[in-house]
């Protein structure tokens, strides 16, 4: 009887998860190109994997992705944690400010990409004018999305603006889970606020921070929509994250075999890294 109840779920899982995964693994060993489906399908063994792993461009894209993930997650953690510490205090307008801070993460990445494109427009966008106000640099003399030196930081900036509130929310849950009596005991012992932060607050919220890092790192590793709208991977290939490379290979170049192999490599990378990370997280929790 139990099997009867879980059967629909299992069937659904097999149909929309397991079968496509197995099919993709099969395709990754073939030469299939959907724009030339009239060509005979050839089994190419590990050629697609070799091609990818020896392709300098793919390694550049992985480096770009890694830099984006590291910088954006690091900034989100610092800003998100800082905001959580502020919001954790009781003050007038507390609920209002919490809602305002949470607004960016409620928006769709497509909307965020589009309106930041306008904000960052060198001639009419207010962002350059604000920078100009503080630095004296003429607003139309630089382009945040069009210059090689600025574009990678722009995508980090926009992603941080959008997702730091999410990290804040997780950290806030962590901060609120610390029992008050621990702080009361620390005050009895005359521990300074700084000491309380380093000895109580931070250690007790580390598992929450690590969880936030895990969620954001996985999300940013597959980041596509916002970056695609902001820069299309440009200028040149400066902000071409590996997800954009994958999309181009699969749905613009139609190299199905090749892109299946790339998807598997990325999946294994994220899965492997996440597993190692979760083990570390469990160890931290056990301490």
């Amino acid at each position, binding site marked *: 009887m139990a099997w009867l109840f879980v059967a629909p779920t299992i069937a659904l899982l097999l149909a929309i998860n397991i079968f496509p995964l197995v099919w993709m693994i099969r395709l990754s060993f073939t030469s299939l190109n959907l*724009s*030339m*489906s009239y*060509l005979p399908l050839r089994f190419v063994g590990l050629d697609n994997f070799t091609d990818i792993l020896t392709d300098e461009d793919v390694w550049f894209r992985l480096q770009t992705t890694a830099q984006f993930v590291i910088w954006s997650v690091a900034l989100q953690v610092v800003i998100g944690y800082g905001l959580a510490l502020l919001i954790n205090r009781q003050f007038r307008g507390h609920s209002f400010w919490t809602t305002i801070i949470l607004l960016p993460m409620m928006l769709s990445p497509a909307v965020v990409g589009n309106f930041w494109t306008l904000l960052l427009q060198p001639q009419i966008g207010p962002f350059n004018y604000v920078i100009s106000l503080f630095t004296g640099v003429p607003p139309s003399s630089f382009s945040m999305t069009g210059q*090689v030196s600025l574009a990678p930081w722009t995508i980090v900036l926009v992603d941080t603006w959008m997702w730091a509130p999410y990290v804040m929310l997780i950290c806030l849950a962590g901060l609120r889970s610390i029992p008050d009596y621990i702080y009361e005991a620390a005050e009895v012992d005359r521990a300074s606020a700084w000491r309380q932060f380093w000895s109580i607050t931070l250690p007790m919220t580390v598992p929450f921070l690590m969880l936030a890092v895990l969620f954001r790192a996985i999300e940013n590793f597959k980041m596509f929509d916002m970056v695609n709208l902001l820069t299309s*991977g*440009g200028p040149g290939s400066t902000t071409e994250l590996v997800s954009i490379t994958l999309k*181009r290979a699969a749905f*613009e*170049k139609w190299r199905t075999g090749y892109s299946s192999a790339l998807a598997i490599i990325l999946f294994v990378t994220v899965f492997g890294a996440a597993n190692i990370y979760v083990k570390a997280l469990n160890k931290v929790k056990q301490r």
Partner: protein
Amino acid sequence: MRTFNWLRSSAATAVLGAALLGIFGGGEAAAQSKQLTLCWAAWDPANALVELGKDFTKQSGIEMKYEFVPWTSYADRFLNELNSHGKLCDLIIGDSQWIGGAAENKWYVKLNDFFDKEKISMDDFVPATVVGYSQWPKNSPNYWALPAMADAVGWTYRKDWFSRPEIQSAFKAKYGRDLVPPKTYDELKQIAEFFQGREIDGKKVYGAYIFTERGSEGITMGVTNVLYNYGFSYDNPKKSYQMQSFVNSADAVRGLEFYKQLYKCCTAPGMTNAYMQEGLDAFKSGQVAMQMNWFAFFPGLYKDPNVGGDKIGFFVNPAGPNGHFTQLGGQGISVVATSDRKDDALAYIKWFAQPAVQQKWWQLGGYSALKAVVDAPDFPKSAAFAPQFLESMGIVKDFWAEPSYAQLLLDMQKRVHDYVVADKGTAQQALDLLVKDWTKVFKEQGKQVASQ
């Protein structure tokens, strides 16, 4: 209780009746109203086509439904549809470069028998459009589309600025010649440099708008206008797919360097990822003196209350040191092989090919490729941009139309954008890498690629 039962049975009868009416009535209505779905890009000429299509509905009783997709996702959306053998489109106005893949993959219905039966002759259409939009293999009598929308890259300029005495005299004093629309790319650059940063009516303006878009086809459709005229060719005319020393010849390198110089010296700030719409915005807002764009947009620009009419002028893509060509745009109309309404779709093509319909198409803002329309004596006077359009259609060149065109295009997008916008490497390196990329694509396609 009885009242309740009566109400219940009445309600059931009403529901049953309504359902039956829905089934039979709906079926009858469906039989009466035939419908065709036409897929194309969302742009000005598509609106003209909707207007034109009303005549077809009036004559045939077939309703026309349209699926228009913005240019940035046009190829993605419809190639996906064709690849997956979808039934969304009965008719498709597909890009010229799709023809090879569409023919080889049998996405389109071959139209030779239909043309013979309906006495539609390809000799009646502008030759470049037949080769560009209909034939595969190229220059063979195998037709997969009817030329529907002739198009090419052309230029607009601010005629009102060019004609101002103070601007004319300043230009003459600086360059020793009159300020007139450029005939060569050197002249164009000179004019663009002249206008760059100049203040006109209290507003800072810029020299030229050129295509730089990275994601789809923009920068390639822009740079080829210069490359062709500097001596770039896709392969050896005597030996297909031999690209070494043709794609990356010294002349081609100079052409690519020139495009970068033009981008650096004379475009507005922030134009790092700009295509058709950004060009229209830049021109309409009075930001640029000259704009590269497709002829398809020129009727709309001419009607613009701020920059149209007497204020706008048009010129053909300027010549380079080694030739005079322009990039072909435009599309042919095809019947999708998986459509369930092929006969109706063919009826639409038969109707669309008629000279009277083609004439109206041009009048509404579409670009006819029918010789009877464009070779008519009054055609050059029929629109301000008609003479330039005619001249351009005589000098067009197109990008690869191979089944692997998407790969070839994306490779060129990357290499050119890397060099022009992202300052990565030299022009020689960019084109050498392009030859390497394209060689790999053709080899995967099973083509023999000679290196020398």
